[in-house]
């Protein structure tokens, strides 16, 4: 099997996994919300309501599709498409596990190991805002426009702090921008130079502040509570997707969950060792290489699912910010903290000489 065929299969699998996880995130969200709110949640469709996402999807497709007369039709359709497209693109650079090995041929579980992986992630995520902007503007609705304006200013503001917090991580990984190298470097070496647990040399132990900044920014980038101002249903009805119906609305809602999935994956890769897990080296000595690879994939997904749950947990616990408070937090708190974090990291690295 040539590497190209393998990559094609990997792309297809990733595509399906992204969609599947997004679909079941909607189910999980409702179940988590129900759990936190002392309710039962969806339990009618299939056992434990497990067929609910499929029912929702079918419903979305069968709903009447309304394109407002006053809207810009081309852009109105383009908006959700762009949002969905960018949401699905990010998964290309995530290293999903240790490389597989069949007959001396090594198969990397990563679609593209580009040397600017981190930049690619930040760039594609920034493009996502166009989906919201275009959709909100093309609707020709004041509420949608307000939502779109909120979304764009929010995303631009928080990307800066996000980028700054990533720079501190990049400093630690000898300046490499490849996500694969960043993840691999967290699997080697001793934690703080003396705690010898293999696969535990995670960045979060060196960069707790950077991690918190990145996490907060990830919430803002995915438009989740407490940063769900663009679609705040009690103020702007639906925000940028007020006018959307049918599967175009579905694409917006779906892409939000894919974004959440990818954000969780990026958080896991940058700060929680990606596919590394404690004892990975020991397992490598007792189990076949490919089995360890599969366990490493499971470890990454375990981390991802935890963060997805965390996103939901926060959403159903705390209220949302007001627009000016959100801006103040982004520019006056997170941004300076991120810069200080970079300075401290740089100073420490220089002093101890790596």
């Amino acid at each position: 099997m040539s590497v190209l065929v393998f990559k094609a299969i990997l792309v297809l699998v990733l595509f399906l996994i992204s969609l599947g996880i997004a679909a079941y995130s909607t189910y999980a969200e409702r179940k988590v919300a129900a759990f936190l709110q002392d309710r039962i949640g969806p339990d009618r469709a299939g056992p434990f309501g497990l067929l609910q996402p499929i029912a929702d999807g079918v419903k979305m497709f069968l709903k009447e599709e309304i394109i407002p007369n006053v809207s810009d039709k081309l852009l109105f359709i383009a908006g959700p498409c762009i949002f969905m497209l960018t949401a699905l693109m990010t998964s290309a650079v995530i290293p999903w596990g240790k490389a597989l090995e069949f007959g001396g041929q090594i198969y990397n579980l990563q679609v593209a190991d580009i040397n600017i992986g981190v930049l690619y992630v930040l760039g594609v995520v920034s493009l996502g805002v166009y989906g919201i902007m275009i959709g909100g503007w093309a609707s020709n609705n004041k509420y949608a426009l307000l939502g779109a304006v909120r979304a764009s200013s929010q995303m631009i503001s928080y990307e800066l702090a996000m980028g700054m917090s990533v720079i501190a991580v990049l400093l630690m990984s000898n300046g490499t921008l490849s996500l694969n190298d960043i993840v691999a470097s967290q699997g080697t070496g001793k934690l703080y130079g003396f705690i010898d647990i293999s696969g535990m040399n995670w960045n979060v132990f060196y960069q707790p502040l950077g991690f918190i900044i990145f996490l907060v920014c990830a919430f803002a980038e995915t438009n989740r509570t407490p940063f769900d101002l663009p679609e705040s249903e009690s103020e702007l009805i639906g925000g940028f997707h007020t006018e959307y119906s049918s599967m175009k609305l579905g694409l917006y809602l779906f892409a939000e969950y894919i974004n959440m999935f990818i954000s969780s994956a990026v958080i896991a890769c940058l700060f929680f060792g990606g596919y590394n897990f404690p004892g990975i080296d020991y397992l490598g000595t007792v189990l076949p290489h490919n089995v360890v690879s599969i366990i490493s994939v499971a470890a990454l997904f375990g981390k991802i699912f935890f963060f997805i749950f965390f996103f939901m947990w926060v959403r159903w616990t705390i209220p949302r910010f007001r627009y000016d408070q959100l801006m103040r937090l982004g520019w006056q708190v997170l941004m300076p903290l991120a810069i200080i974090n970079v300075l401290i990291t740089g100073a420490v690295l220089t002093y101890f000489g790596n």
Partner: protein
Amino acid sequence: MENTITDFDHKNEYTKLNLGPTHPATHGIFQNILTMDGEIIVDAEQTCGYIHRAFEKIAEHRPFYQITPLTDRLNYCSSPINNMGWHMTVEKLLGVQTPKRVDYMRVIIMELARISDHLICNSVIGVDVGALTGFTYVFQWREKIYDIFEEICGARLTTNIGRIGGLERDFSPACIQKIREFLKEFPAILIEFTKLLERNRIFMDRTIGVGGISAERALNYGFTGPNLRATGVDYDVRAMNPYCSYNDFDFIIPVGINGDTYDRFMVRQQEMWESHKIITQALENLPEGKYFAEVPQFYLPPKEEVYNNMEALIWHFKIVMGEADVPLGEVYHSVEGGNGELGFYLVSDGGRAAYRLHFRRPSFIYYQAYTEMIKGSTLSDAIVTLSSMNVIAGELDA
């Protein structure tokens, strides 16, 4: 395109935004026409009348006992208080003295209604700042209060509870049991709800200093109830002009300082504790005796009397056909409703219906001050302010 801005006068860059009549945050049907400068509200104009049902006019053609269902539909979050207020107004006109047991039973029902009203209002503030969990969490406790109402009168939301002169039946043992259970379990829930929001940093940032009004302005507008008390004025009809034996009970009147959304929230939270206290006292000291006063021309006789007794049958017929005469007179009675002083001004010319009946509806008064309170704030603030004032569309438009 007709929307294109041609005149680049700054005034033309403002956007007109219709907040309502069907906006999810308006909790009912009212419209605000906002002039927005980006997110900031430059000017606002409120309209009302979307669900005006002409209750005051209808009431002029109805016998008194048929007006009770109309009052249900004023502030439907605490309809028992409205029902009782109307009954007490008629009793005042008739000069009827109700037995102590009736007063205490009424106090229990009214305070339960107050708790349910405040629960809804406070949890909806949470919903409007984006925290849905508290809302769904306390909603089941409102359901428990409704179970108690169901046990007392058979209805839940629009209760039509009680009669002129008393209640239609005594509290059943099951009802007393349910009230006791509620009193026992409710504090834990209220503490948990308080923990969820009261010291939450985001919630405090969203509500402190938002939608404030000074005590002077509030008094000028005619504010009453929690919204006035939040500004620091300790005016409570239950204490200032006690009705229904409220002076028998020991309770305090919580007041705020700034009159902002957070103070309104806190005043309501504290009032729920006071209501809990009042219900406990009333239930413990519930006097023995009759559960209705002697007003044969308005209080329906029991069914077995109707079937076996000539006099009772005649009264039953006269009441149901609305043929009971009302004495000549003019009376004003007010109760502390869920969100303020709910007054009934009744003028009778001695016929079989009211000559004129006016409901003093607190929501109508709050809503007049609404535009003043939101000018210069953001859209998000306007929505939180509206929900914290507990403006109920049914009461606003009557």
